[in-house]
């Protein structure tokens, strides 16, 4: 299949754009594969891509119940960062960041990764200390981080309210300059095209409805498009993890599925160049290249698989938004939507072999797994190919809870809605 480039664009324009080929094939399911990956989201697709690219395993199918990218990869707010406090997270997300930095080239697909920075605002001296702790932790692991003064913040985003009379005045912020945003759909499509070009079968509208078993061992999946056998079955279903695991007879996991809403404003001329988060609530915002302000806040706060939320959070998010950017009161919210997040008990992910023989599990991404897409696929591919975790995901086990080795960034304990 043809490489994408400015040249190919021109050539095709001259021939009336008639020669473009599908970005990925639409094959029929084969009877069996070496690896079947459940979930055509970012993580499933990147896992397939790296299985093929790094481990030469190409007899792989990604099965997706809806259209490719219909899950959270297609509905997230696109923030990519590695500004974590705890070393297992920092290391993992920084590896992801490095992959992001070369992803468009790697995939020959412009995923529009734009390193325009992510800024966390602090509103009390204690919070500033907290952020300093995190920023210093990053710096001690070779990750970029800077503290920003109020004046610098104002210069960066002229519409922000930095007045001392604000209810929660801004005292400064923690900036990760290399962080930024990527075009979410392009990530899914780029990985799909990349995996497809290496021989992976992407099976859309193919819902897993059961598992093939040989005793305890998982030997394949039952899907809406027939049975598919597999030497290894890997689950990367994000918000649907609970549902799918139930099909395998596992009805309890350290996971709750929660709904998270997101919003886009009408298109505006450049207003905000950075991704910014409010420290006294849950609000965060960036601006898409199309001009829409992309923003969100807290979870709705209850279990749900419905991909839609309710009003209280809508109101909460807007109120917090205006606390930072009062001039947006007369700008309009264009659309709201929601995704289902697999909230883990400590807020950190799970990438592991098991819990059944023949099965591999990738979940617990909470509302932060988009940025993990490259590293998650990279590590999961390793875990599947080698039957043991990569050192980067060695800490992301299922039994860490039992052992008390939780990775709790927020210190909230086993209350998933608070992570």
């Amino acid at each position: 299949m043809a490489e994408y480039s400015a040249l190919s664009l021109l050539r095709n324009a001259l021939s009336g754009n008639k020669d473009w080929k599908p970005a990925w094939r639409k094959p029929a399911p084969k009877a069996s594969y070496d690896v079947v990956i459940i979930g055509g989201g970012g993580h499933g697709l990147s896992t397939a891509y790296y299985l093929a690219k790094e481990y030469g395993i190409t007899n792989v199918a990604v099965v997706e119940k809806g259209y490719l990218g219909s899950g959270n990869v297609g509905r997230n707010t696109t923030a990519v960062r590695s500004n974590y406090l705890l070393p297992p997270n920092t290391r993992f997300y920084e590896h992801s960041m490095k992959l992001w930095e070369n992803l468009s080239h790697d995939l020959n697909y412009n995923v529009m990764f734009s390193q325009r920075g992510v800024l966390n605002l602090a509103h009390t001296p204690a919070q500033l200390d907290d952020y300093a702790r995190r920023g210093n932790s990053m710096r001690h692991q070779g990750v970029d981080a800077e503290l920003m003064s109020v004046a610098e913040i104002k210069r960066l985003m002229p519409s922000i309210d930095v007045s001392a009379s604000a209810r929660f005045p801004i005292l400064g912020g923690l900036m990760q300059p290399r962080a930024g945003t990527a075009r979410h759909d392009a990530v899914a499509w780029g990985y799909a095209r990349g995996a497809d070009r290496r021989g992976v079968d992407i099976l859309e509208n193919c819902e897993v409805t059961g598992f093939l078993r040989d005793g305890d061992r998982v030997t394949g999946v039952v899907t809406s498009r027939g049975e598919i056998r597999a030497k290894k079955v890997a689950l990367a279903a994000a918000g649907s993890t609970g549902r799918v695991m139930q099909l395998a007879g596992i009805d309890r996991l350290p996971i709750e599925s929660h709904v998270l809403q997101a919003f886009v404003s009408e298109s505006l001329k450049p207003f905000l160049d950075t991704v910014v988060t409010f420290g006294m609530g849950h609000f965060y915002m960036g601006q898409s290249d199309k001009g829409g302000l992309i923003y969100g806040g807290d979870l709705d706060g209850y279990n749900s698989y419905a991909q839609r939320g309710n009003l209280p959070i809508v109101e909460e998010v807007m109120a917090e938004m205006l606390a930072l950017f009062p001039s947006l009161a007369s700008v309009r919210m264009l659309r709201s939507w929601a995704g289902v997040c697999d909230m883990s008990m400590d807020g950190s992910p799970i990438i592991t072999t098991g819990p059944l023989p023949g099965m591999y599990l990738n979940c617990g991404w909470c509302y932060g797994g988009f940025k993990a897409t490259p590293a998650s696929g990279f590590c999961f591919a390793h875990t599947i190919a080698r039957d043991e975790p990569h050192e980067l995901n060695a800490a992301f086990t299922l039994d860490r809870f039992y052992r008390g080795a939780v990775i709790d960034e927020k210190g909230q304990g086993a209350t998933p809605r608070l992570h």
Partner: protein
Amino acid sequence: MSPRRNETGGQIDRLKTIRFTFDGVPYTGHAGDTLASALLASGVTLMGRSFKYHRPRGVLSAGVDEPNALVTVLRGTAREPNIPATAIEIYDGLRAESQNRFPSLNWDVGAVNQLASKVIGAGFYYKTFMGPVIGPLQGTRFWMFCEHFIRRAAGLGRAGTVADDARYERMNAFCDVLVVGSGPAGLMAAKSAADSGARVILAELDPRFGGSANWSGETIDGARIADWASEIVNALKGRKNVRLLPRTAVWGYYDGNTLAALERVSDHKETAARGEPRHRHWTIRSKSVVLATGALERPLVFPGNDRPGVMLAGAAQRYTNQFGVIPGEKITLFTNNDTAYQAAASLKKAGANVATIVDVRIDISDQARALAASAGAELIAGHAVCETDGGKALSGIRIQRLDRASGTLTGEPRSIQSDCLLVSGGWSPVLHLASQAGAKPEWDEKLQAFLPPKPTQNWSGAGAFTGRLATADAILEGHAAGIAAAGGNARLMEKPAVEPASVNPEPAPVFEIKAKGKSFVDFQHDVTADDVRLAHREGFISVEHLKRYTTLGMATDQGKSSNVPGLAIMAEALGKPIPEVGTTRFRPPYTAVSIGSLAAERYGDLKPERLTPMHDWHLAQGATMYSAGLWFRPMIYGHAGETVEQAYVREAKAVRETAGIVDVSTLGKIAVQGPDAAELLDRVYTNIFSTLPVGKARYGLMLREDGLAFDDGTTWRLGQDDFLMTTTTANAGKVMQHLEYFLDVIWPELKVTVTSVTDEWAGAAIGGPKAREILAACVEDTAVDNAALPFMGIVHGKIADVPVMICRLSFSGEMAFEVYCGAGHGTHVWQALIDAGKPFGLVPYGLEALGTLRIEKGHVTGAEIDGRTTARDLHLDWMLSKKKPFIGSAMMDREGLIAADRLQLVGIVALDNRPLNGGAHIVEELDEENPHGSIGHITACCYAPALGKYIALALVQGGKGRRGTRAYVSDPLRKRFGPVQIVSHHFFDPEGTRMHG
């Protein structure tokens, strides 16, 4: 196009002239006009530029479905971008600006983008801008360089930078029946529901009730239908059980029949009345809902269909009949259905010249023929428009014979001169609200439209919404729906006589005329029919992929006019029927809503302020306040010219040397009462409380179920069954919920009441060598000496005639007391203490000094109990009772929680005698260039006047074992590096002799 205002007709007030400006040019209109109708009446037809190609655009519709004519409204310094001119009521002084053009709407350099349209079609940016693989522009640089320009070219209007001073408000409403939409169907539904005695709310997004009755030009039982509508509205107005909400768009249908609506209260006024909000955000909880939201007309897709002068037929009818504006001099009409003929006849009746009707169908109904004849229009059947002429305004069209079977055009194109082309591609019911909950709409082959899904909540539908486009049917259906929604059983009404007779609205299944040239599907986002086919070719064939790849339907109008044509073109490319292709998901809001309205009363007032009883005193004493959660607490009481450090050092010193007093009213206080109160405390605290004598207090530690430290505080036994628990300020609410949860869910057998009494008590902590003397000087009815008031003892007495409760406990490490009194007496008692302390040098101190004193003592707070530490990490293992289980006891010994390399509490002393920073890390080897090897971090730091050093508390790996060793602070963020000594966290008076004193 040269539109003009009619002499008579319409629902505008010709006696009221209104002055406004558009792009700085003054215009006039009449009361009742929209910006679009007033501009049209003034001959202005160019109103906007499209998103990508900057194509000149006129007005397509007359309502919220408008994709083209978007403007920015300026109010004072506030800017309101992207508002459809069709939805703006003009008022004197209105200032509107066109958008997305430079330097002007007429001459826009962005229009050069059209030249590159072949290259910059759907999804082009995914294929390019990746830049070189090596060199200075590798990685993301090249893309970011290009992106900079792309971002500036994209976007529509510009947001303001200063707060608008408008008021936004929330309103909660409850009713039996909410009727959405006030066309003939909705009006009847509201009336019949109200007649049945139900509490009714009728919401209409337009300023005027009546919907299509305002412009259909029909009569009902001989009367003008607009008058019929006004009569019903007037009757409803006077009724107690009815609330009429004009200018109110119901935009969200949430769970539990909770609907969200936006009322534009004063947008149509030059200035809002005093106290009047600009927008009111309604949350309506209704037992049942009648959706009567009508239907929207769809355009047809053909080359040049976006030229200013091309307009929906129904919109033209509306401009003519409601606003008295005839949209052109020589009008052509292009349709695939009969409803447009009604528009033609209606326009003719108002004096317009409808010269030609072009219909894609060959078989034209008699009714349509008759209407065409009455319109005096030439009817050209079996033809289609294949191109439009003109620059920024339509001058003519070209038509060709259409072979519907093959979709091809044949014969020589015929040119028709025309300045206004009306199009009608059929009608789509407004089923957005019905499907927001996720139900899939169903395709109706006859109407060639999606119909509402089966209700997932308690609603019913009526009128054009359900596909009943005939007015008489809509009225009947509305009537029945209203009664049913109210749970009434009134008799059904007789079918009214509506003239002219309704036509059959079923269109021919023609969506696109394929010919050379750009045929727009999504006008605003410049998505063409070719873009849809490109998406198909590249495999983006799911409607959701189509949408995301081309951005079809993602503009401000959310594809109200473009979705169905777009997916019809995709269906054709796929060779699949439309229902198999489906439609994209509907999401709130139905129409864009101001962010201010959603923030409502929290705009400018995000959170309430929580004030202690002595708040005003602190302010009067010049305290700098610190916001702690919702509370405000004094940080320092600075003297003139003092730095923060000087102030807190002075205050802390005073506590050690004489005495200080601090407001502790914010501490969480929970009354724990009942026969099982002590038992409850034994279960939730790690240590034992049942053995605590009445009149004594004890320090307690709580863990979470997972065994990590949760909160600490003292609990006072005031009576056998009566405890007063104190918590940290930050955790007060959490601890309360924790106790309530266990009492309700886990231990319902315990007879304990827990009540938040944080606000009942004002608290002052007074400490220092002179504290007891000061107390003795002002307390009555009790002694405060060691015998009467030993460490952790409690006494009751009076200060300045007010009953107080005093407990001798110490956070500062000094001889100290907490004095509690009723909050209403707080300032009174506080002032009495201050007065009594004056001779002794008593000093009020704030949080900074409080922090300093506790750091010197090594007491922990939220900075150390951060949800990741255990009791052992904090050297509080002595508090873990072995005699009883308690919350967290089973989980606290898991291997990960007792590991040797855990972060443990230590003290830190700066060896370079320079200030330390919170959040600085500790390392064994200093490397300023490449900091690495963190072994922990500082949680709190200060200058310790008691030691004359900069000290800190820190959490350090294997901390205890490192006492006495040297390490370094490494704080690259603030470039502070230097040697430190790791010591015990008990810096000062570790034996506690001062407080036991």
